[in-house]
Structure formats: structure tokens, C-alpha cells
């Protein structure tokens, strides 16, 4: 799956979990830029991503992601 395809599927999840209908995903998006993105909603987001892409994101990776780009890369690679 290309990164662009991942972003397309990721966007509605981010908008729903972080409750911002105008949120646009980019690789350098971080929790700093999103008001509702805290440690709890981060977990919610990871859970939804795991379900949507049928993958298990290792806890340590989930907890240490620096930006959305890392997540996109991880998903994109898992879907090949």
C-alpha cells in the first residue's frame, strides 16, 4: 500500500478520534499540532488503526512515535 493510500484511510480515523473534521494528515503532523491529541486519545487512535489495517502495532513503537510519518511508514510496510 502506498503512503498516499494509507493517508486516505488514516484521515477519517484521525478526524474522528481527535474530533476535528478539518484535520489534514501530513507526515510531519505531531501531537503538538492537534489539540485533542493527548496520551489517551493517542491510544484510542492506535486501537482504531490496528482494527482498520488488521495489524498489531507493538506497544513500544506505538508509545515512541515521533510523528505521523512514522505511523504511515509502518502501516504502509505492513500492508505489502
Amino acid at each position: 500500500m502506498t503512503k498516499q493510500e494509507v493517508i486516505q484511510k488514516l484521515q477519517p480515523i484521525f478526524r474522528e478520534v481527535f474530533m476535528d473534521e478539518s484535520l489534514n494528515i501530513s507526515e510531519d503532523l505531531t501531537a503538538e499540532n492537534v489539540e485533542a491529541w493527548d496520551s489517551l486519545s493517542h491510544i484510542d487512535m492506535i486501537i482504531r488503526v490496528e482494527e482498520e489495517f488488521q495489524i498489531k502495532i507493538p506497544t513500544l513503537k506505538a508509545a515512541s512515535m515521533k510523528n505521523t510519518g512514522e505511523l504511515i511508514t509502518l502501516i504502509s510496510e505492513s500492508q505489502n
Partner: protein
Amino acid sequence: MDSKRYIQLLKKFDGLDADTEGENTRSSVSYAILSNSETNQLQKCLGARLFEQGFQPKLIKTEFNNFATDSLDTEGELFQSDLDFVFFVLSPMGLKETIPSELNERSQFASSFLSELEMFVKNFSNKGVKVFLANIPETSERVFGNMSRIYPASFLYQIQAINAGINNLVAKSQGLYLVDLASKANYYGLSEWHDNGLWLQGKYPCHPRFFPTICDEVSAIFSSLVGKIQKCLVLDLDNTLWGGVAGDDGIDGVKIGDGIVGEAHVQFQKYVLDLKNRGVVLTIASKNYEDVAIDIIENHPRMILRKNDFAVIKANWEDKASNIQEIAAELNIGLDSLVFLDDNPFERGIVRDHLPQVCVPELPEDPTEFVDFLTQLNLFETTQFSDEDLSRSEFYYSESERKSLQKNAVDLKNYLSMLNMEACVKPIDEKSLPRSVQLSQRSNQFNLRTQRIDEMTCEKYIKEPDKFCFTVDLTDKYGALGIISCVFMSLKKDHLYIDEFIMSCRVLKRTVESLIFNEILNIAKENKAKFVVGEYIRTKKNKLVENLYQDYGFENTERSDEGSLWRIEVSGFSDLDTSIKVKRS
């Protein structure tokens, strides 16, 4: 199960402030969750769930792992907030962190934990805050292998002991209610329920996709406590109670027993019979010729449920919404206490559209899934079982016989005298307490002040010298109706005040009311009160008794949109006629 509903509930909670749907009719519920884990999201989900159930939730926020200090600080926010209930949910992961590592110190873990827990919960229940206490889902950790369940130093053994202790504590205490999370976790599987990564990362008590399930249980218990109870099942016949279509397949063709579909329907009927024996009233609404339907019910060799198991059978070609309305009217119960089961999505849709108060589950197409589906819906939650529950179906069945007699009897007085009614009137005691509390919680229509008297309050009426209460236990020629009314009163200066007057609508128009007023006036007289004062507090459902006091000779002293006040002079009162023979004890 995925986490979509979890996310929806979170979203719903954050939008609650702006959601004014039905805001005037919602009763507010103030709640808090106490835990040794992170429950921020669970607290929100519960609020959203309570809102879905028709309440206006008010969350008193608590922080991670403060359950001990929050419970002990009786000057703190929780104790100042007029809480309706507090939900204790404890994670086994959190408990495990507190168990001593020395094996010989472990055997006392459960008992010392339980005595602390008892102290915490009693701090709330003593103040009249209802406590919902969850038991602890087991963990799959087995240091001692297959010995774990019987070796006291194992953590699993200690969880078992804590859960047994929680059962005892709830059973012996007033105002405590068990939330059986252990069964829920077993049902979904412990390896799904627990998530060690999420525990370490966020101290989540379980995987959050199960938060909605937890909230379903809690809100079901709370709803039943305030009288929102489903007590009657309305069943379709073709492809619901049996496989196939009666009118097409005939008694020899419908599938009951024999083969997968037939066995599935037998299993389903047995489950429905269990519900009936537990006190759920069974009725039928089916598009069929009545004689064809009754022939199968009475004569098919593999039928489990028979005609006598149903209080009302509507097998005809009228629309189901009308039939369901008639069922509710004949049984004198509200539409919101009905659950309608039908395999046909069209019929379900019609009923949902016309009678939105009726609960209409999306029955699965496959009959082998019926029982499991209904079990998980937990439609008939109750916090009290009483003997009356167990015989209620019998009552409702004879109620339809009583009604047919009523049709034949030309005049009401004559009919009533033919019923040979006897009433036993006596103060509430330990034996009648559960039923009295239950009546107070469940009755909506004949309920003058809707005070929802709980066990603790009821005890006061039993013990305190200036408080009075009694129950009326009725029998007639068709059998025992059980306790159908209770009255609570307080003596104040020159008058006896009726704090609560509740009667089951099953016995309307039988002169029970007259008997009760005679009793109340008698108590007033014996205690030298000059007046009896009664109040009507309006709710959405008790219009029935709006004019009760007026009808029985009280004069109006105050009136507003919220209700009215009434009084009657004791000296001018003479006993009202009744058709009931009274036994006093």
C-alpha cells in the same frame, strides 16, 4: 467486537453539552468511577451511555488510582456532590502490583483487601449513595500451573477469594449492587479482555473496546433501580417461536425439535420459559389465524411453551403495533416495559416507528444465535428478586380470565363480589421489605409522589415511632396476587402526611383504594391526627392518579404545574365501602 462503539460513545460524551434532545424529561444522574486504573475514557463512555438511556448524566471526575483516598476523604468533593451512584471497578493488574512477593504473606491478601474495600464502599452506602461494585476478571497467569486455583499463595486463588467476598458483601449489605464483569470477561475471553501493553502504557483496566459493554451493565442496573424495567416479552410465532410458517406448513410442517432449525427453536423456547419462571410475562403478537396458532401451541408434541404460559395471545391479521398496544392495555403495563421479538425486519420497523417506547432488538436471522444474542442483551436486568416475581406470569394469565369474567358480569359491584377478594393489611416487615422496595422502584402509574423508597429508607418507616407503613396482600378466587400496594406515612404536628402511596395497576377498580384510605384514616385516628394530608407530584407517567385524592373526598389546598396538595378531616370521615374482606395482623 471492534472499538467503533467505544469511539462513538467518547464523541457523544464530548457533544453532550450541546445535545438538548429531550432535556426537559431527563432526570439527572450524578456519578463517579473509582478505580486503581485509568478510567478517564470509561467515565466519559458511561456518561454517554446514561444519556442514551434517557438520563442527564453529571460526571464527578476522579483521577487515576485515587480510589482509596477518595473513599476515605468524607469531606472531599465526592461526598459533597450529592452522588446518585459510585462505580468501583478494580483491575486485577493493579491488584497484582500490590500483592506481597513473599508467598507466606499472600494468603491474607484477599481478606485484608476485602476489609478495606468494605470500609470504602460503606462510606458511600451509609450516606445513601448507591454503590455498584464490579468483581475482578481473572487473569490467565498461572505460576502454580493447574494448582493455581487451590493454592492460597497464587494470585488467581486470591482473586477467587476476593470475588467470593464481594458476592457476600453485596448480598448482606443494603445499597450495594454487583456488576458481574468477571462473567463478561469470560464471555469475551480473558486474552481479549486484558491487554498488558495498554495496561503498561496507559493503565487501562481492560481493552477499551469493552468499555461500552461495561457501561451497558452499569446503566442497566441503574435503570432498573429507578424503575425503568422491561418485564414483558411479546413474541412473534412463525420463524421466531418455531421454524416455518404455520399457515403454510401446518402443524406437521413447522419446525419444532428434530433437525438443527427445530432444535434451535426448542432451545430458544426453553430459554423463554426460564425467563417466564423468573417472572417475565410472555405474550404473543402474530399474524396468523388464531385457531391454527393455538392448535400448534397446544398440540405439537415438541412445543415447550403452551397456551398457559402466555398471558395474552394476539393471533390475527391486524397490524402488530395495534396488537402490542392492546397487550399493554390488557396487562395494565407501560409500553416501555415491553420487548418485541420478531424475525421479520418489516414488522420490527413498523413497531419501532409507531411505538418507539417498545424495545425492539435486531434478532439475528439464524435461530441458532437467538439465545446467545438475547443473553448478551441483558434485557431483563433487575436488582431484586421476590416471590411475587416468580408468580407474576401466573397472575397475568389469570388476569385475562378475570377480564373475560368482567365482560360477562353486567355490573362492576356484582363482578367484584364474585371475585371473593381477601386482603391482608400489615406493617412492612423483613419479609415484605424487598417487595415493598421493588413496588416503589417499579411502579410508575399509580405512584403519588414517586419517591423511589430504597431499603434504608424503608427500614426507617419500620423502626421510627412517628413513621408508619403497611402493605396490602390480595387474593381472589383465581389465586394470590401478592403484595400489590404499600403506603408510607409520617406523623407531623396535627396531621398524618402520606409520604408515598403506591399501588400496582393490576388491581385498579377493585376498591383496593377505598380499603387503603380506610386504613390510613384509621392510623390517623389512632394517633390523634386532625387531618390526613396527601400530595400528588406530577411525573410523565402518573396522570392516572392526578385526581385520586379528590375522588376520595379530600379537599384541595394547593395546586401548581408540579402537582397538588390535599387534605381531609379525620373526624368527618366514615369508612368507605369495599368489596374486599380485610384481615389485619
